[in-house]
């Protein structure tokens, strides 16, 4: 499938049999409409926001496998420190799209955002995005511009903070051990 005509296209990545289209956030709606109307991706499966704060901070030593595949016969790279590839900005919004027709084509639409940089809402393109975007706002703090009902959905209405961010602590209670007391 030819993705060269997608508006705002920055990069096309292919890995593990999946295609990722990196798009400029300012032209997200145009890209979404193009994908839905011209290329037939009429089904929005999922919107996943990811926080890359601290990515690549520590080397992942001796990564035995590479992103392209694994070969047990290749000598292992244990001992070489490998760093994961750098990310352009802190947050990524991934829109997983599917075309409901023979062949089940899937594509991932990806936009990169700084902290508090808003992303336009795709509710008018795929109405199912309503709750997915509310969840991205609630848990990750990605502001959605133009969303008709941007309120917290999973956390309490008066919760402070965005729990799934990497600088938000896991919370809970420290485990007490009988030997300590």
């Amino acid at each position, binding site marked *: 499938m030819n993705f060269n005509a997608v508006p705002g296209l920055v990069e096309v990545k292919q890995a593990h049999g999946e295609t990722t289209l990196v798009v400029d956030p300012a032209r997200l709606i145009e890209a979404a409409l193009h994908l839905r109307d011209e290329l037939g991706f009429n089904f929005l499966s999922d919107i996943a926001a990811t926080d890359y704060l601290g990515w690549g901070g520590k080397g992942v030593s001796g990564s035995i496998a590479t992103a392209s595949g694994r070969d047990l016969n290749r000598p292992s790279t244990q001992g070489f420190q490998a760093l994961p590839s750098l990310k352009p900005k802190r947050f990524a919004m991934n829109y997983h799209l599917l075309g409901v027709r023979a062949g089940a084509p899937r594509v991932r639409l990806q936009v990169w955002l700084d902290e508090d940089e808003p992303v336009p809402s795709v509710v008018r393109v795929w109405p199912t995005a309503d709750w997915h975007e509310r969840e991205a706002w609630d848990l990750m703090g990605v502001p959605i511009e133009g969303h008709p009902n941007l309120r917290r959905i999973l*956390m*309490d209405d008066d919760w402070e903070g965005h*729990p799934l961010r990497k600088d*938000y*602590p*896991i*919370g*809970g*209670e420290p*485990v007490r051990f009988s030997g300590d007391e």
Partner: protein
Amino acid sequence: MPTKGPGVFENEVAAMEQAVGLTTLEKAVAWAQTKSMWPDTFGLACCAIEMMSIVSSRYDIARFGMEAFRSSPRQADLLIVSGRVVHKMAAPLRQVYDQMLEPKWVIAMGACASSGGMFNNYTTLQGVDKIVAVDIHVPGCPPRPEALMEGIIRLHEKVMAGVPPAYELRGVAS
């Protein structure tokens, strides 16, 4: 085949029964409470599915007179908190507990209700006994229907022995 003798729990209950010394009337009241202790429909998560299977015909809670799960907490005696309780649900849980009339008992079913289970994080209540007074904790993830049944039977034994419900013992505002 030798029959199973009384274990630690049974001995303690028997000792308590001797110590508390119920009158015949109190024993009759305890018997009546035990034989028709109606649970409230408070199924939250996975443990609720195992709680539903205890109602089903194989494990049959109806032989204890408990198949009548009341939807209204005003009509229920027993609150089986089955599933993980999160902070957002803590207020409705406490409200339901407050609406129940005394005497009322609480079974914390499963690891999540007893102690937060495997979820030690920002949103899960680390044990429902932080907000309500729990009589029996049933371990398991989820506990088998037989395990829940043992918890229920032990609760019945406690009540028959004259042990007051947990809110009288724990000092948690009831």
